[in-house]
């Protein structure tokens, strides 16, 4: 298993996006969701990606994480040029090299907290004991050791979000992508989660892109990137 710093690649960047364009065909029309965007995220850097709804921030985040392929441009994550990857290669890339934390948490409801982390191991070449040890370690570090056997329905909103963060960190990625991680949380819980994200990312030296509307996150991020109409404006 590589460390996040190692997986940042020879350039020292966790992510390099150059000339990224994403065009959707909607009926007979073409919608330019992302328009010639350049974005570089250094290893260990936390970037807040902000912008109004429909500005293209989630599309950009999806391209960075290998969920979408760009129509044009180059994406290098942890030294891997992924813009030309096939669907199968992207699946493998996502499993091994990036972490995701989704807006609606999306834990698997019939799995315990520990099993939700171990899903990452179960869907790939299984590491067995090493994966179980890592899951236990992450749960402990996230303050969830005593909740390992609880189902998501038995966890609070903050605890669920912490489990989701643990799942995103299971494969020890160089880059974690957060999609509106505090949007479903109340103010104090949102604060806790923001702290947690910053602490966990910094402690592990993991780069992160956080798609958000939440001002608190922009204050905790190393850099804020604003996107409007598919273009980076600041």
């Amino acid at each position, binding site marked *: 298993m590589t460390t996040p710093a190692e997986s940042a690649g020879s350039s020292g960047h966790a992510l390099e996006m150059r000339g990224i364009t994403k065009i959707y065909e909607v009926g007979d029309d073409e*919608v330019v969701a992302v328009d010639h965007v350049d974005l570089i995220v250094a290893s260990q850097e936390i970037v807040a990606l902000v912008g109004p709804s429909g500005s293209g921030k989630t599309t950009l985040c999806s391209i960075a994480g290998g969920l979408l392929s760009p129509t044009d441009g180059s994406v290098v994550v942890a030294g891997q040029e992924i813009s030309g990857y096939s669907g199968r290669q992207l699946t493998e890339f996502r499993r091994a090299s990036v972490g995701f934390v989704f807006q609606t948490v999306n834990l698997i409801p019939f799995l315990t907290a520990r099993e939700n982390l171990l*899903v990452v191991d179960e869907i790939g070449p299984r590491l067995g004991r090493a994966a179980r040890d890592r899951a236990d370690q992450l749960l402990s570090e996230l303050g969830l050791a005593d909740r390992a056997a609880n189902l998501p329905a038995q966890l609070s909103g903050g605890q669920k979000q912490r489990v989701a963060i643990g799942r995103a960190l299971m494969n020890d990625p160089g880059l974690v992508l957060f999609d509106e991680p505090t949007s479903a949380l109340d103010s104090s819980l949102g604060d806790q989660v923001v702290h947690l994200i910053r602490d966990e990312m910094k402690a592990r030296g993991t780069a992160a892109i956080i798609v958000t509307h939440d001002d608190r996150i922009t204050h905790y991020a190393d850099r804020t990137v604003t996107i409007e109409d598919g273009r980076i404006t600041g």
Partner: protein
Amino acid sequence: MTLALREMRRRPGRFAIATVILTLIAILLMFLGGLLDGLVASSTGAFRSQQADLLVYSTSSRNSLERSRITPEVRQQVETVPGVARVGGLGSVQLGGRVPGRGPRDLVPTVLFGYELASRGLPAMPPAMGTVYADDSLRASNVTIGTTIHLGPARSAVTVAGFVSDTRYSGQGTLWGSLDTWRQVLNANRPDARVGPGVVQALVVRSGPGGTTGLPARIGQATGGAATALTIAQAIDALPGVAQQRSVFNQIIGVTVVIAVVVVALFFALLTVERTALYGVLKAIGSSSRTLFAGVVLQAVIVALIASLIGIVASLVLDALIPPGTIPFVATPVRLAASAVILVVAAVIGCTFSLRRVLRIDPAAAIGGTP
């Protein structure tokens, strides 16, 4: 795979409806199959029990035992055909039997067979005149060893010396005696069908070491086309109603299987729709469509196996509870296993309809990355 199994263990209620419906289908499938086997068994036992390779009918009978007559001359011609090892006469007559202890009009439908070459379970030497072996299904009609049955309008008496199993014919219990007994009973009760000395309805032929290859054709040639030789399987297929029974039941079974496919297809399609968000997340974190679909197939197979297991137990219980001689139902291991395999295959086919849906789930949708 582990995920699919855990879901079934932790959320059994989610699969309850499909399991119940498939169980009912499994029971129906096995019951229909058991009825078909029972009906066919009760129609064909006399032929299936033959320890022979061929049955020879007169060509003019058009493969009907009842219409067929083989004269001693034709028999002699058949005996001389190269490859024929042994030949025995066979005759039958369907008559109502009066059994002591039953009302005078409460006749037991029976078929009296006269034989020379013993079929399975019969003594090699046919019993003495007026003595017969009875199919054990006749026990349900108060027939025991020593019972004298009076056959037909002439009330020809035959006494039961023992029992044989699985030799029913045309749905009726059979009696097995010598050709002389058969001729006497036939001539006394069916004047329209009387036969002379040496005449039989069919010949039972055992082939030599060379087997039956070319033997039917040689028998046809040797008899100048007067006789037609059929394998036992062909003779069974030629029995009135057997092919029709098989066809009708197999069509009903086929429709039941199609219903099973549709049930599984609809259930897992619905389940897949419910799981779209979950599959989106799993794909986003690196699960392949193949892994997800394998989980769906595994769940369908497990549901089908549980349904089959319950169906098998229900069929065995039913088989044990049905009184002999009432419903022609037989639960055979081959039928039960075949029904289980068919149901599992139907389940796999059914859930393949979800494959396209699983493939089309876009992982980007998990974080709202597509418009």
